[in-house]
């Protein structure tokens, strides 16, 4: 059980502060207080709080600073506070809060340091600590890297506990009843005689007290909410069509805009003719923006129609116009001077390869991939003399705030970012071009709110995609065992491309080039993973699971090929090589769940795959059947070590969704460039999975590691590998590239 005394020394102290008509509970930030976003108007010295709980006359508000793109982040964050605060989720308002450096994300740091998540040495722990401080310095209020749960797990429960105990102290002071005789439930303190005092009524008194910091977090055996099925805070709205998203924004006098910018990314606009567009019904203006043109109209469709009528001359792209040159660049990158990292170098791989006469040599490819969440990207911006308001679904509100301030020449604190519910993201809303463009347009109409909506085609064209990547494997097997495993991976740096668009240099190696490969817990005697950094090509960004989305495929399919060459059983050999106990248990679980080894009908095959990413070991078994009409994915079994399943329903939904995401893209999706432009324009070109293709997916969450982890991304990396391995088992065809439909047919 964590007591706040020990936790506070290394992180933060829970504090409270008076607000109008009530009290707010939260944290003093790390070492030095960071200015507080929610307490404007307070006296100096009181404003050193990062509030997570606010109680005033309007009720109880829980602040959930990690954005919700459908993963249930608001619900999870609210539940962690509510568990200790003794409120029910139907009693509280959940608000994402404003962007602020105080809401930094410490858990992202754990995955940025060059130590594998299974490494708990002093060096690993202290380096993670340094990275933690750096992130805090940068004030990254980022939702990403599956970090919401690990980042929030202690922080939010402590905030709830301190608030609860302070409210009890207020009740004791008001009634004379000893704190020990008070109980709390449903947002109220209960006296021994059954009388209740609501938190709302107690808030003004609580604000005058020192917060009660001597609290212990409750024992997991007593949890009311965590680990049990909860009703998501947004589920009624999302089951009745009443949930609104950024794209549904309406404001008085609002106008509607859309853009066309150079499809040859980073290229210039040479000129345009808007004669026809300007004459179309409802068109209010046509304006030049960075890299292209915007149409402003009185509704969305009229803006789309007029944008399509623009005649624009585009300059060349800043990268090779055809795909062959992109692949060639990767192929040319397996050289010493592009070696970025070789953190995994066990035994003597070079000697093994040199002395062997039967080296297994293979190559793999993974394409650019678009994110394309179903809600097209959009932003609404209102520019006024003394302030700018931005309404949008974003994972990076702090960057948005800074960028809008820079574009408009305002101070950062004059920019107010209102984070709205997102209709999916998968990493797409870690970019903010749409906000910058909306700001440029809104600056031409001060005092008028402008909503910018992308057409699906514009969204596809300008999706900062998943990385393109290539891998080469060489290995040696002896006496039925994998003896040498050498994997080289080449890709451009995702982080450099992404942070480059924010004007931030990223020094040092990029761990994403080898993520999902170098840190795998296999005890192969001669084991090497090398990351090669290719020069920048087309813009790339974080796509669900980032580097591991391609590397999990490379690493495990290559392992499967070596195990096949050794003549060993795919499950048994992985288990034999696995040294990390929590990871081993995921393999044992899927073996048991799927009855691995059972006789299968003719034409049916099973593949197993494993990947440790974002600190989560995941094993999957996929069963496919090969039919005259093509491959059918019948069943998936998945076991994931997550430390703690916060909500079994949301867990199952997210795991299934991650697998559907990975398999759909592995089957049929890619982004390609021709003449410098993205060729895929809508879902008919990059479809993903549909209902008729969705397999049965059996899910099990394991809780052996003690480390609480997020699950948004880690299901993705092993799925494409398990599919390839299953197709091999069923057909004898080894699929070494995605989309796999290039090699085999799917029903």
């Amino acid at each position: 059980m964590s007591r706040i005394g020990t936790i506070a020394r290394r992180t933060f102290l829970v504090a409270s502060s008076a607000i109008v008509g009530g009290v707010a509970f939260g944290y003093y930030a790390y070492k030095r207080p960071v200015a507080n976003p929610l307490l404007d108007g307070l006296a100096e010295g009181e404003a050193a709080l990062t509030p997570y709980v606010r109680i005033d006359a309007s009720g109880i508000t829980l602040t959930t600073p990690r954005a919700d793109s459908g993963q249930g982040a608001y619900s999870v964050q609210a539940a962690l506070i509510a568990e200790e605060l003794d409120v029910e989720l139907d009693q509280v308002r959940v608000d994402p809060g404003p962007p602020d450096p105080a809401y930094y994300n410490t858990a992202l740091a754990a995955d940025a340091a060059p130590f594998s998540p299974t490494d708990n040495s002093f060096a690993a722990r202290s380096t993670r600590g340094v990275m933690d401080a750096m992130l805090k310095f940068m004030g990254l209020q980022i939702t990403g890297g599956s970090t919401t749960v690990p980042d929030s797990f202690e922080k939010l429960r402590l905030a709830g506990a301190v608030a609860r105990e302070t409210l009890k102290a207020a009740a004791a002071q008001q009634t004379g009843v000893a704190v020990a005789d008070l109980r709390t439930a449903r947002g109220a303190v209960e006296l021994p005689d059954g009388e209740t005092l609501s938190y709302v009524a107690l808030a003004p008194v609580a604000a005058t007290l020192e917060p009660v910091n001597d609290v212990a977090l409750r024992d997991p055996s007593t949890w009311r909410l965590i680990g049990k099925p909860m009703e998501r805070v947004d589920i009624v709205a999302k089951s009745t069509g009443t949930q609104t998203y950024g794209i549904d924004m309406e404001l008085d006098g609002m106008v509607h805009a859309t853009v066309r910018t150079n499809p040859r990314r980073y290229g210039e606009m040479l000129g345009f003719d808007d004669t026809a567009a300007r004459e179309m019904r409802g068109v209010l203006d046509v304006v030049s923006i960075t890299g292209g043109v915007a149409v402003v109209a009185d509704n969305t469709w009229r803006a789309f129609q007029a944008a399509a009528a623009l005649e624009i001359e585009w300059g060349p792209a800043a990268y090779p116009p055809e795909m062959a040159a992109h692949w060639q660049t990767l192929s040319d990158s397996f050289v010493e001077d592009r070696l970025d990292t070789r953190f995994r170098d066990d035994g003597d791989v070079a000697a093994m390869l040199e002395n062997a006469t039967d080296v297994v040599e293979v190559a793999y490819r993974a394409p650019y991939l678009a994110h394309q969440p179903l809600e097209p990207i959009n932003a609404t911006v209102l520019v006024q003399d003394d302030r700018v308001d931005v309404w949008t679904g974003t994972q990076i509100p702090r960057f948005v705030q800074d960028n809008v301030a820079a574009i408009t020449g305002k101070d950062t604190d004059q920019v107010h970012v209102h984070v709205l519910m997102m209709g999916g993201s998968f990493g797409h809303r870690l970019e903010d071009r749409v906000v910058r463009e909306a700001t440029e347009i809104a600056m031409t109409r001060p005092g008028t709110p402008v909503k910018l909506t992308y057409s699906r085609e514009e969204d596809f064209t300008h999706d900062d995609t998943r990385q393109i990547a290539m891998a080469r494997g060489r290995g040696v097997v002896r006496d039925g065992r994998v003896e040498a495993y050498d994997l080289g991976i080449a890709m451009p740096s995702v982080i450099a491309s992404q942070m480059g668009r924010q004007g931030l240099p990223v020094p040092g190696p990029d761990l994403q080039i080898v993520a999902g490969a170098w840190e795998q817990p296999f005890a192969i005697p001669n084991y090497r993973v090398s990351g090669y950094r290719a020069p920048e090509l087309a813009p790339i960004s974080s796509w669900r699971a980032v580097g591991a989305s391609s590397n999990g495929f490379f690493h495990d399919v290559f392992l499967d090929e070596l195990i096949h060459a050794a003549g060993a059983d795919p499950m048994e050999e992985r288990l034999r090589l696995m040294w990390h106990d929590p990871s081993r248990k995921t393999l044992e679980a899927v073996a048991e769940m799927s009855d691995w080894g059972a006789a299968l009908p003719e034409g049916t095959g099973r593949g197993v795959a494993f990947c440790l990413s974002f600190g989560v070991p995941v094993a999957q078994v996929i069963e496919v059947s090969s039919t005259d009409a093509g491959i059918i994915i019948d069943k998936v079994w998945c076991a994931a070590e997550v430390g703690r399943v916060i909500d079994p329903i949301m867990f199952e939904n997210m795991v299934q969704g991650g697998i559907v995401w990975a398999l759909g893209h592995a089957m049929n999706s890619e982004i390609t460039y021709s003449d410098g432009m993205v060729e895929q324009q809508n879902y008919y070109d990059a479809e993903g999975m549909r209902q008729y293709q969705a397999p049965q997916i059996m899910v099990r969450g394991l809780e052996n590691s003690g480390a609480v982890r997020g699950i948004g991304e880690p299901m993705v990396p092993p799925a494409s590998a398990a599919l390839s391995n299953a197709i091999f088992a069923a057909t004898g065809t080894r699929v070494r590239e995605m989309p796999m439909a290039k090699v085999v047919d799917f029903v």
Partner: protein
Amino acid sequence: MKLKVNGTQHDVDVEDDMPLLWVLRDALDIKGVKFGCGVAQCGACTVHIDGEAVRSCQVSAADVWGDVTTIEGLGTPEAMHAVQQAWHAHQVAQCGYCQAGQMMQAAALLAENTAPSDADIDDAMSGNLCRCGAYPRIRAAIKTAAQKMQEA
């Protein structure tokens, strides 16, 4: 032109070829119907015209041949349709953006076929994309709704 939506008669001044989707969203401020692709590839804009599920991005305003029902007309948080109740009970939604269209498609399926098989569900629902991959729950919710509607 005149349009009847969720039982209310509206008179709108729009081009004949403006898609019903945009008439609903921008002219009538009915936001439950969603824009996803604009080319009938995703089903997020699914509404009913005289009970038939259609992609509202592909129906021109002038061609609307009957009464329009959107998700708001199917049921409300206070009085949910059986399909919405099942979506709620199964907690189907992740981002939820496609779900209004999914529910309208499912409601039309169940109005015609009270006990759909897996193959019937595949046929009816495969035009509705869910990028979050909630397909297993969508299938389960349709079966629950079917059962409930049979009992009613």
